[in-house]
């Protein structure tokens, strides 16, 4: 993460070929791009068509005479008497995603400092254990977690952990627990690479660990915080499994993914509304992705590429 050693790619492998080989690869690039882009274009076009048009003809027939309408978006955002609107679902998604990003980040910055600059026995073993959990399936804990949060944990008659009837808090904590290993990995690599002299100098100057941590380590760690933060935010914003289990369809808490999946099940034929809803659910992630692509990709590829 700190300084990726890159080489100028060798000319041997990058010369844009005029050979048949080069032309074939270029053609393949065009085909792949089309397959990857066209479905999304279809969604966009469908989302601005009327109900009649969308249910009778394909979206590719519109070119020529096309009168786009934003009515579908207004209808979906607002919702109806029986269906929660996507505006509320967007707010719910943010109420889940922001704390589910900030909490693991904070815990991980502390842990990264501990793993890098505090000596204690079993440090390496613990770090290896956390790394192993990076790909731990949350499925393995769902049943006990759901009952634990709603009924508490007791052995016999003795209550060990009381019930916590705060579904939103439960979702934050579960996302925190399963996002932490990656956060710790990314941040630890970064914090461990900070110059030791810098930290020693501050300690010699009489700074305590709190001051070293807040004034030196935290500001220098911002790039890694951004990389993990953006990755985790998009991950949580796009997640469907955890909210559908812990929050269900309650309009007051259900996020965009849950709302959209429900709509796909019940409104299978209203493609104009489904398309508008899907696009609303994609809008924020796409903005975040296109404006902060570099950080997102850093978070995603952390650890996979030798540095």
């Amino acid at each position, binding site marked *: 993460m700190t300084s990726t050693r*890159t*080489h100028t*790619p060798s000319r*041997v492998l990058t010369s*844009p070929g005029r050979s048949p080989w080069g032309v074939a*690869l270029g053609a393949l*690039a065009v085909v*792949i*791009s089309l397959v*990857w882009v066209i479905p999304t274009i279809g*969604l966009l076009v469908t989302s601005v068509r009327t109900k009649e048009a969308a249910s009778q003809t*394909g979206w590719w027939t519109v070119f020529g005479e096309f009168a786009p309408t934003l009515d579908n978006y207004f209808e979906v955002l607002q919702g109806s008497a029986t269906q929660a609107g996507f505006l509320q679902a967007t707010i719910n998604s*943010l*109420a889940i995603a922001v*704390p589910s990003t*900030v*909490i693991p980040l*904070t*815990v991980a910055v502390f842990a990264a400092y*501990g793993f890098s600059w*505090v000596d204690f026995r079993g*440090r390496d073993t*613990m*770090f290896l254990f*956390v*790394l*192993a*959990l*990076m*790909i*731990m399936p949350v*499925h393995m*804990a769902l049943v*006990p977690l759901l009952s634990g949060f709603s009924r508490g944990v007791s052995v016999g008659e003795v209550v060990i952990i009381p019930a916590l009837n705060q579904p939103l808090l439960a979702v934050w*904590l579960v996302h*925190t*627990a*399963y996002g*932490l290993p990656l956060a710790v990995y990314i941040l630890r*690599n970064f914090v461990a690479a900070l110059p030791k002299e810098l930290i020693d100098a501050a300690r010699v100057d009489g700074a305590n*660990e*709190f001051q070293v941590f807040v004034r030196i380590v935290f500001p220098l760690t911002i790039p890694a915080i951004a990389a993990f933060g953006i990755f985790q935010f998009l991950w949580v914003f*796009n*997640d*469907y499994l955890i909210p559908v289990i812990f929050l269900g369809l309650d309009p*007051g808490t259900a996020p965009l*993914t849950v709302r959209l999946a429900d709509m*796909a*099940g019940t409104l299978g034929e209203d*493609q104009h509304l489904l398309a508008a809803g899907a696009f609303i*659910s*994609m809008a924020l992630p*796409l903005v975040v*992705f296109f404006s902060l*692509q570099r950080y997102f*990709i850093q978070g*995603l590829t952390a650890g*996979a*590429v*030798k540095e």
Partner: protein
Amino acid sequence: MDILTRALTAIAFGSVGVVVILGGILWSVERFGGRRLRRVARPWVFLGPLGLIIGVLVVLPTIRTVYLSFMDRAGREFVGVENLIWAFTSDTALIALRNNVLWVVVVTGLTVVIGMLVAIISERVRFPRLFRSIVFMPMAISAVGASVIWKLVYTYRPETSEQIGLFNQILVWLGSEPMAVFTQAPWNNFFLMWIMVWVWTGFPTVVFAAALRTVPSELVEAAALDGASQPTIYFSVVFPYIRSTISVVIIATVVTVLKVFDIIRVSTNGLYDTNVIANEMIQQSFRLLDSGRGSALALVLFLIIAPLMWLNAREMKAQR
């Protein structure tokens, strides 16, 4: 407005809360603790929160799930390996297992191969970043959103009426009959897998693109001087050099595929022989309320993933 206020309060509470609690503990220990206390407390202050969260929310529930997999549907009576036997012999579970094997082989194979192709090609085309961004875009949206996109593409109308899904329209243009994509087993599985390929290929692409840039150009040029053809250079110099990156990508892909749930849930809900373990696990646990069978399926999933967790941790540690 009321909703907005509530959401903002929740966000502030959760986000500021954690900073205040952890920062407060550290500050008080450093401010008021003696030299000895500070030294003893330090590992706990920095790693205690991590340990507590992982312990209570990951380790304990995992142990509990193992226990539940040997109990009856309500988690009261011990039933031995009955649930595990069910997980390997019942028709439902066997179809799910079969599909998972197919998913792992097909999706991992396609995404890794296409991802490598895109990474390689993107170094030679005029707009490398644009090309990679196009392939990567689906990674930024939810699997639910991606499934809806493809649901529209796959829409089926009987032969007599006009097609409104692009896939069936193309079939009709090519002179064949439209196809009910989601209901025709076993082919429906491959169309669902394709959604995942479309979503996930961006991951291998960007990782491989970054890894290709770490291959020293001297190595490549030396091979070229020796007269090696381009495919030979890739297979005997480039791929071996980025071998560990390739294995990390394969592990991450296999695990993600094994956990696939949203695509199935939104498209077919596991009907028409398209079920997978993760979806059946959710169905058993939360729809049919059989925590024994649900936990047994979760355990199967975990046992498949466990060796990969070990391999992955080792690769990651070696690379840091």
